[in-house]
């Protein structure tokens, strides 16, 4: 059993929080994993990606080979397109449809979304709306994790357990809000 995931988004959208939850759930379920991430200059408001590999066999490369990803999980629609050459022909794209525009030449959002529509396996979620419904627009990352969860090889309860661990230091309200974001994302995708 293996799952290679490209996590994508814009610096500040909380990609590494998604990675934290998946990493720890994978550890709990006894999977090997490697997760390559981006820090420093590469991060500031720019495109951010993380290569996340889960497998019951040993994992060699920290990077997923192009054409090898089983999933692209993106918190931003343009960003999921950036990494399409990593996706295997059978792979699935789980992406937010809410654009994050911080560049002057951001393409027409309708074109971005229709490009995503041409993919065979895709899940599009209005993460901005659902995150607000959960209590904060900053919870879009957990909405997207929820939306991806039916396609992950990890168990839902383990993902939730580590959402608790992640947000516990910031109080019960934060925990509940992020769990709700996860739930809303999950039901939107099912």
């Amino acid at each position, binding site marked *: 059993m293996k799952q290679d995931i490209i996590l994508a988004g*814009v*610096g500040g959208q909380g990609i590494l929080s998604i*990675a934290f939850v998946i*990493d*720890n759930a994978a*550890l709990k379920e006894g999977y*090997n*994993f*490697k*997760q*390559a*991430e*981006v*820090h*420093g*200059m*590469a*991060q*500031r*408001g*720019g*495109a951010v990606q993380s290569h996340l590999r889960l497998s019951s066999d040993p*994992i*060699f*490369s*920290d*990077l*997923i*080979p*192009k*054409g*090898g990803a089983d999933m692209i999980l993106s918190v931003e629609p*343009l*960003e999921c*397109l*950036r990494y*399409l*050459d*990593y*996706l*295997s*022909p059978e792979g699935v794209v789980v992406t937010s449809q809410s654009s994050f525009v*911080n*560049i002057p*030449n*951001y*393409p027409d959002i309708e*074109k971005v979304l229709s*490009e995503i529509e041409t993919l065979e396996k895709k899940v599009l979620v209005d993460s901005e709306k659902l995150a607000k419904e959960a209590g904060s627009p900053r919870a879009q990352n957990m909405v997207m994790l929820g939306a991806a969860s039916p396609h992950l090889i990890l168990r839902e309860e383990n993902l939730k357990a580590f959402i608790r661990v992640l947000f516990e*230091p*910031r109080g019960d309200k934060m925990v509940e809000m992020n769990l709700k974001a996860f739930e809303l994302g999950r039901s939107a995708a099912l």
Partner: protein
Amino acid sequence: MKQEVLLGDEAVALGAIHAGLSGGYSYPGTPASEIMEYLIRASNGGKKFIASWSVNEKVAYEEALGVSYAGKRALVSMKHVGLNVAADPFMNSAITGANGGLVVVVADDPGMHSSQNEQDSRYFAQFAQIFCFEPSNHQEAYDMTRKSFDLSESLGIPVLIRMVTRLSHSRSRVQPHPPQVQNPLKYGEGIDWTLLPVNARRQFKILVEKQGDLIKASNKSEFNSLRINTDNTELGIIASGIAYNYVLENYKDETERPSILKITTYPLPEDLIKKLVKHVDTILVVEEGYPFIEKNLMGIFGIVGKDIRGKLSGYLPSTGELSPETVRQGLEMEPLPKRQIKDFPMAARPPQLCQGCSHADTYRALNEALGSYPQSNVFSDIGCYTLGALPPYSAIQSCVCMGASVSMAKGGAEAGVYPSVAVIGDSTFAHSGLTPLLDAAAKDTNMTVLILDNATVAMTGGQPTFLSGEKLERVIEGLGVGKKHIRTIIPLPKNHEINVQIMKEEFDHNGLSVIIAARECVQQARRKKRSEAE
């Protein structure tokens, strides 16, 4: 012991702690910063061991060396270009030798994700004639760090660990082993460390004579492996560090693998290389960084009857970082099927200054102030503010190395550039800007130094700065800059007009001026607020 989820950098830090570390020192720099971040968190405020940010890499190195001379175990960590700054103590500590284990961790940045070059630190290890480890995964990063301390003590030399971005910033499981206790204080032989020519000649000879032992240690290291495929005498692969992973990624089926030599230690394990070369006709060398092994193998004449492939022969790209695909190509395998979107206008999303960043206000004022002069040069430095080179600011014209802005502005001014402006952050100024400013003050050079004081090392995640606020002003004055020409501005949109005016006044002053643009980093302010809330 329980398995842990660690970054490669953190695996090094934990390995050092479990090896009985007494003192760790560093200056922030991507991709090495997380080593010290972890050490500081684990040090329990210095009660367990010393873990501290130093003012620059040279200072950090010398502090670690002092710990080693006291017989205790020391680690110094930095990014690759940091070793240029620390090169002087580094080279000489190889000659004085280590007393307590001295481990130098250097994180290279192939592909230049956050750096101005992709220099390969294995050359530095060779230059200093010391031992070097190059881990290929997290467990090795932990195990090799522990081993490095033992080896440093048994060989009596510093040991270098070469990390690369992809391992430093990748997370995986690590199995730790029971920790050992710290060394007791043990005074060494001062005569070994006093590099007067008479001592240095003796010490250097000792270092050169040790080289045979280093090669022996490399030959028998448990971290190298040679697997000979007796059925295949055509192709053999030499792969070092994380490049080994990219090779295996392309040979998931073990039975298809040609003979593979995995190298993780330097000087090169010569015996293992000879064995592999003897067995095959073609050798593909796969290594991250410069063609270090490949060049060693080729020499000038190559090896008669053998086809040596790698970066020099064009089988692998000679710049940038390796990937599973580039290695696949080097192995002459068909690429994996993948999808591609044609004709879609992808827009790049480069990193940028944060919303509300003080540097943005400073650059707007600087651009306007300089607009009244026919020409000018803005020499800049290394930090978030280097992003001021990009639109919409396009405000700076150089970024070379830490502290260079001030010295280059002086050189520029002396060559006739006017206005000649230096732009440098508070931490970079403390790191390497003080000495050139002392120089400029002594000559009252006609130039303006703009110090962007955001009270933190912002770029690398908000580490503490050594020089900010009032202390910074006092130091500038102490360096000999006239008090009248030390000005402070608050870079905010509402102060734009006055800030432009102050800049112009100081450009018009025929002599040295320092303008401090003081406003807290917005990210740091947010972090403070959050930690207060928690």
